[in-house]
């Protein structure tokens, strides 16, 4: 058709003529009203919608809502208007859509048990809360935002029973480790799989030290050992917690079997926020926090640098400018005359702060919704100087469009840019804690640069020629200001998805997701640092993680008759994970700067590790509902993984559960408003590490040598050489398999005024893979095998009470309690009868790979028990242990001195001191005895005060920092000290073992009751656990009670706010995080883990050795909602 002028004018004319008729039909209908709770409180964030028309809106904080129906769709018909909000029972009403305004108010009844609400159960399956056969643990966006944590993993601390979160330290960006129901794998990660909007995402932690095997013992198999270097973050921290709508925790195989071989440690299902139909909603959020260390290390300030009461000669030309001089290392002398005291426990710290600014825009109409957010979170750490920060910028878009009634397309895209600078710490002569806490009180760490080179307490007068000389321990300020430890991450993840419902009972879902991240690392250690980088060193590396996931499911809903019905879901998942780690070490800086590999004298062979893992899986789930009260679920997954090895590509993982809402059968009681009993069984797996079935040769493995760096590489004289790998290929490997049985009940009391949940579970993990030691004369050192069996079982209880629920006043309290008992049943070798819990000498065990201490997987013990050394004690040490039995020094055995003594009685030798038991024994179990939390929230009108206590009871931690500082005469305990002229010739400060708070308890032996001087002879020669090897004095209680969260929240939504400021509401929040910790631990914080998520994931937690302190924060936040 051609638009000639004549035709256009006639078109306009006919359009004008038709206008009145069109106008009549296009009059929109405005539905307004107010939503309140049954307690009379106005409810915001209620979705009021006409689902059949795809129209809706969110109510404002004053409860009012407006839904506009376009005139074109109005024909006087009746429509169903539904109001729903999490935590309330949804309600529907019939409204007649006639021209003009329609008013309908809703009163929603509280639904604390969330009955009827849709719960995502993984891999595209959903269920409703009351039909679940597993205990449900979900965390709402509200609880996540109240945690004030930038790392979503840490925000889950104390949110669900048996979900244990441990933060590595208070460094900005420090990793948090999360574990559910105990450690069950030796080589696997033991952390749950993270799934965001249906797509698995990376949550790995990688230590830059792993690029530097010669100095730091980096791992070849997996990523083990993070006792040195800096902390690093875990990749789940790339998520902006403000984008999270809800988190569902699948705690173990009985719930997570639908994820098969990757789900033995559970699954964290994260759903992000979406836009909803209705007016476009803006919010602007800004929060700031002020952070400081929560504990100051106790140091002595009364004694100075030197040994045996002889002060070190610290003058120019004195022997303190030579590395390794013993008299200069420690603080076992009187203070120098007139010396000034410097506070080394405080000089490294400042009040750090963080600033988090974000914007969110969301909205949509009947066909299209969108959610767009942008956020920058910047944390300036508590350590002085410019090199301690973590900055994360995120952008997120989520949109969906209904193309036709049956087809909805969606996309979900996130970008994260993370830049951080970390600080060297830990078991590391270049670490700040080791140098700082060992510095004598009279040494001023300023200036730390002289002639461009380092000045430190063991090297006090650097001249221009001292560049390549070892300072033994770095001046902490030198490390802080002069070294550079960076991570720069760019990450994109998201998915495209389609939802297709061709017929009323069938729905097809397709999701194609990807997650790509590069992490560029740099560690620059300047010239004149302590060994191993006296000449300067640069580590550069890059980690690339790329994951693609395809998931398609079809769900059919059926109903046999009104009493029997259910769903059937069938799906397929393909997953590809690619990891590349490429890095190298440059040794010897040519010029002092820059820290670039090209500015180094020599470079190590690069670490170039690539891993590709593919999975191809099928799964199906069916649910069957009987009489609306018995809900059965059965599921099975068939997983194939490239890690299983060629001959064993596929594996089955079944699951089944039953839930019986018995209150439907017996009727609601006056006190019992809801009751459900449930049982579930499921199996899930842990994939073997890739390539364990592949026999290889190595051209870089170091052969022979008497200490690090003295061996040869296989290549010599310019001719390439290859040597057999010490790891023998496994002929066949199956996935590790965890079989979990869970049973429990969920109850609602007094018309849901209170609810309780109790769960018992037992999880047996078989075929756990370990590297079995081989006899070296077979040609290999070790071989992977499905050999170990590990059991975790325990209880989980939660109780929530809502005593007051009124319009103006509300109060609720939540209690959680959980315990998990870990027990190693087998490590694949026969257990001799002589192996008992009291005498472990003959018990088979495997050392945990990469553990800092000799933490083991030992039959009859909990995972991660520490096989260490203690003092001779009756009933604990072998009765045949030879000991002196009288003051004359005649020898006998422990049996001779232990007659009639209680078990645990401490043996005291003729010198009045305890003595080492040379028989190794289990000296520590790092696992908590039980964990719990107390949460409460009080609401008065628009004011809400909330608090959360995190309680962890039992469990031990090895305080190696304390042992080392005893040895160096720096710990506050050594303020009281004997006067020692040699290792043993001491006088003064006498103590009697077993009395007056000095190792209280029963004692025996020839020296029992003898008063002995306690000084260098004890602190340096016996008690210094990291150096002497008797662990017992360093083992402390790891339990604590921590005031995790306190917050005070006020919502301004009075009409003047809208009039004067243009915002619907303003939320103002004042909060504190980790405000107070109650503990017997004397180090920085019992919630400390030297190896962070890497070591904790391997089961070796409970180690503190010059790790950085934890922090506490005050937070101020304001959110403007439009």
């Amino acid at each position: 058709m051609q638009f000639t002028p004549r035709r256009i004018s006639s078109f306009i004319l006919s359009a004008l003529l038709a206008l009145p008729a069109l106008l009549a039909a296009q009059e929109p209908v405005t539905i307004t009203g107010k939503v309140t709770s049954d307690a009379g409180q106005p409810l915001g964030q209620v979705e009021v919608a006409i689902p059949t028309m795809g129209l809706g809106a969110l109510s404002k904080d004053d409860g009012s809502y407006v839904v506009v129906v376009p005139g074109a769709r109005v024909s006087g018909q009746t429509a169903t208007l539904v109001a729903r909000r999490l935590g309330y029972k949804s309600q529907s009403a019939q409204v007649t859509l006639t021209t003009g305004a329609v008013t309908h108010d809703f009163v929603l009844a509280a639904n604390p048990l969330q009955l009827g609400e849709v719960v995502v159960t993984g891999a595209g399956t959903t269920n409703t809360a009351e039909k679940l056969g597993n205990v449900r643990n979900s965390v709402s966006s509200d609880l996540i935002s109240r945690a004030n944590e930038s790392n979503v993993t840490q925000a889950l601390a104390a949110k669900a029973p048996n979900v244990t979160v441990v933060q590595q330290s208070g460094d900005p960006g420090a990793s948090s480790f999360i574990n559910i129901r105990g450690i069950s794998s030796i080589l696997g990660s033991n952390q749950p799989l993270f799934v965001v909007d249906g797509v698995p995402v990376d949550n790995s932690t990688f230590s830059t030290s792993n690029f530097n095997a010669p100095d730091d013992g980096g791992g070849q198999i997996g990523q083990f050992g993070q006792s040195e270097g800096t902390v690093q973050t875990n990749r789940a921290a790339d998520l902006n917690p403000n984008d999270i709508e809800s988190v569902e925790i699948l705690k173990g195989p009985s719930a997570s079997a639908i994820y098969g071989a990757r789900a033995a440690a559970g699954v964290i299902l994260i759903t992000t926020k979406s836009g909803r139909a209705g007016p476009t909603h803006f919010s602007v959020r800004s929060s700031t926090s002020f952070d400081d260390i929560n504990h100051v290390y106790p140091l002595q300030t009364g004694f100075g640098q030197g040994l045996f009461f002889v002060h070190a000669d610290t003058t120019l030309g004195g022997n303190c400018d030579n590395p390794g001089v013993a008299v200069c290392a420690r603080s076992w002398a009187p203070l120098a005359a007139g010396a000034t005291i410097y506070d080394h426990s405080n000089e490294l710290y400042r009040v750090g702060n963080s600033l988090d600014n974000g914007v969110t825009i969301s909205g949509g109409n009947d066909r299209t919704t969108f959610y767009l957010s942008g956020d920058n979170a910047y944390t300036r750490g508590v350590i002085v100087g410019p090199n301690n920060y973590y900055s994360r910028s995120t952008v997120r878009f989520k949109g969906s469009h209904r193309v036709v009634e049956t087809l909805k397309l969606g996309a979900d895209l996130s970008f994260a840019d993370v830049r951080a600078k970390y600080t060297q710490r830990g078991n590391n002569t270049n670490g700040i804690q080791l140098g700082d806490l060992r510095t004598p009180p009279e040494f001023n760490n300023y200036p730390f640069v002289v002639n461009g080179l380092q000045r430190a307490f063991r090297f006090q007068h650097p001249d221009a020629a001292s560049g390549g000389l070892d300072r033994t321990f770095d001046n902490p300020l030198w490390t802080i200001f002069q070294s550079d430890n960076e991570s720069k991450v760019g990450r994109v993840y998201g998915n495209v998805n389609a939802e297709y419902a061709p017929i009323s009972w069938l729905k097809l879902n397709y999701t194609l997701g990807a997650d790509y991240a590069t992490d560029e690392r740099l560690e620059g250690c300047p010239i004149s640092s302590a060994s191993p980088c006296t000449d300067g060193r640069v580590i550069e590396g890059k980690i690339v993680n790329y994951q693609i996931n395809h998931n398609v499911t079809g769900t059919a809903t059926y109903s046999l008759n009104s009493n029997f019905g259910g769903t059937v879901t069938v799906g397929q998942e393909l997953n590809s994970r690619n990891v590349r780690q490429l890095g190298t070490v440059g040794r010897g800086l040519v010029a002092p700067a820059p820290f670039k590999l090209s500015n180094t004298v020599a470079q190590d062979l690069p670490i170039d590790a690539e891993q590709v893992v593919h999975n191809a899986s099928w799964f199906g789930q069916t649910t069957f509902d009987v009489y609306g009260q018995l809900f059965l679920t059965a599921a099975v997954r068939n997983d194939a993984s490239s890690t299983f090895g060629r001959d064993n590509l596929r594996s089955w993982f079944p699951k089944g559960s039953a839930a019986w809402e018995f209150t439907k059968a017996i009727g609601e009681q006056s006190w019992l408003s809801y009751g459900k009993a449930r049982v579930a069984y499921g199996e899930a797996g842990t994939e073997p590490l890739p390539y364990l079935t592949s026999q290889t040769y190595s051209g870089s493995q170091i052969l022979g040598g008497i200490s690090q760096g003295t061996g040869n590489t296989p290549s010599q004289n310019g001719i390439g050489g290859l040597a057999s790998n010490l790891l023998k290929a496994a002929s066949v490997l199956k996935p590790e398999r965890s079989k979990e049985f869970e049973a429990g009940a969920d109850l609602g009391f007094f018309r849901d005024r209170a609810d309780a949940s109790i769960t018992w579970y037992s999880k047996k993990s078989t075929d756990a893979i370990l590297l079995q030691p081989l006899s070296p004369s077979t040609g290999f050192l070790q071989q992977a095998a499905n050999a170990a069996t590990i059991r975790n079982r325990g209880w989980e209880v939660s109780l929530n009470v809502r005593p007051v629920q009124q319009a103006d006043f509300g109060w609720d309290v939540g209690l959680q309690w959980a315990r998990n008992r870990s027990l190693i049943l087998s490590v694949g070798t026969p257990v001799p009868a002589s192996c008992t819990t009291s005498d472990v000498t003959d018990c088979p065990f495997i050392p945990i790979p990469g553990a800092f201490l000799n933490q083991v997987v030992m039959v009859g013990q909990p995972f991660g028990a520490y096989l260490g050394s203690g003092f001779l004690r009756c009933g604990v040490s072998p009765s045949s242990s030879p000991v002196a039995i009288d003051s004359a020094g005649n020898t006998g055995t422990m049996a001779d001195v232990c007659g009639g003594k209680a078990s645990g009685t401490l043996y005291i030798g003729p010198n009045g001191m305890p003595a080492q038991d040379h028989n190794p024994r289990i000296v520590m179990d790092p696992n908590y005895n039980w964990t719990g939390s107390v949460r409460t929230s009080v609401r008065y009108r628009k004011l809400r005060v909330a608090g959360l206590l995190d309680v962890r009871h039992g469990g031990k931690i090895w305080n190696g920092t304390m042992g080392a500082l005893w040895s160096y005469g720096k710990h506050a305990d050594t303020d009281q000290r004997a006067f020692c002229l040699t290792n043993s010739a001491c006088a003064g400060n006498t103590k009697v073992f077993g009395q007056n708070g000095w190792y209280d308890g029963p004692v025996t032996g020839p020296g029992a009751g003898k008063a002995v001087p306690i000084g260098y002879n004890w602190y340096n020669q016996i008690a210094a656990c990291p150096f002497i090897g008797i662990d017992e004095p360093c083992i402390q209680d790891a339990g604590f009670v921590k005031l995790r969260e306190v917050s005070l929240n006020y919502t301004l939504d009075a009409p003047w706010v809208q009039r004067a400021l243009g915002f619907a509401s303003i939320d103002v929040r004042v909060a504190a995080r980790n405000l107070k910790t109650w503990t017997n631990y004397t180090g920085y914080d019992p919630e400390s883990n030297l190896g962070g998520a890497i070591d904790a994931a391997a089961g070796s937690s409970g180690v503190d050795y010059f790790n950085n302190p934890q922090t506490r924060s005050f937070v101020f936040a304001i959110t403007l909602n439009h």
Partner: protein
Amino acid sequence: MQRKIHVALVSIGLLLGTAGCTSFLTGDKLSSDPNLPSAATAQQLFVAVQSGQFAFQEGTVAMMMCEWVQACGAANGRFVQQAGQYVFDETSNIGANAGDWLSVYDAGGLADIRQVKAATAASGDRVWLGIAKIWEAFTIGSASDMWGDVPYSEVTTSATPALDNRFTLLAALQTLLSDAITDLGSTGAGPGTADLIFNGDPDQCCRDQ
């Protein structure tokens, strides 16, 4: 529109259904380690053997002998176990380096010597085979010098090889050396410059000495 979507979905389904699953699971970089070679030539292994034995002879053997005759001492907590307490077994030194018996039997030791022997026997290079036998006798002989009875005869047949009586073992090594002399006199190109000591010259190597 609706129809086209149906067609598209069915096509996707068929595509997924027919995609080769096996190659998706066992293809490149999946079943075999992409980071390390899965095969090695006689030359590569032979260079590694020499490299490994240099490190062993000049490191562990030299240091231990020196300590045992009390010409060297241990200091600063290093080597105290071996020198001070004469603890010296298959796992000693595992912490400090790769472990003493690993040098004798594993990478760069007997495991790789045996592979050199197999490869040269298969290619018919008797000269190289003879040289490899001499390395085997040298390596195991040194181990026996230090430890006395050591595993040898059951090394390839048992998961826990028994210790051979020292004199039986030395007799076996003597036979091995006699075989080596015969091999050196027969045909074969030899290792050439990959023999880092004698450039593969059988005359220099051992035949007449």
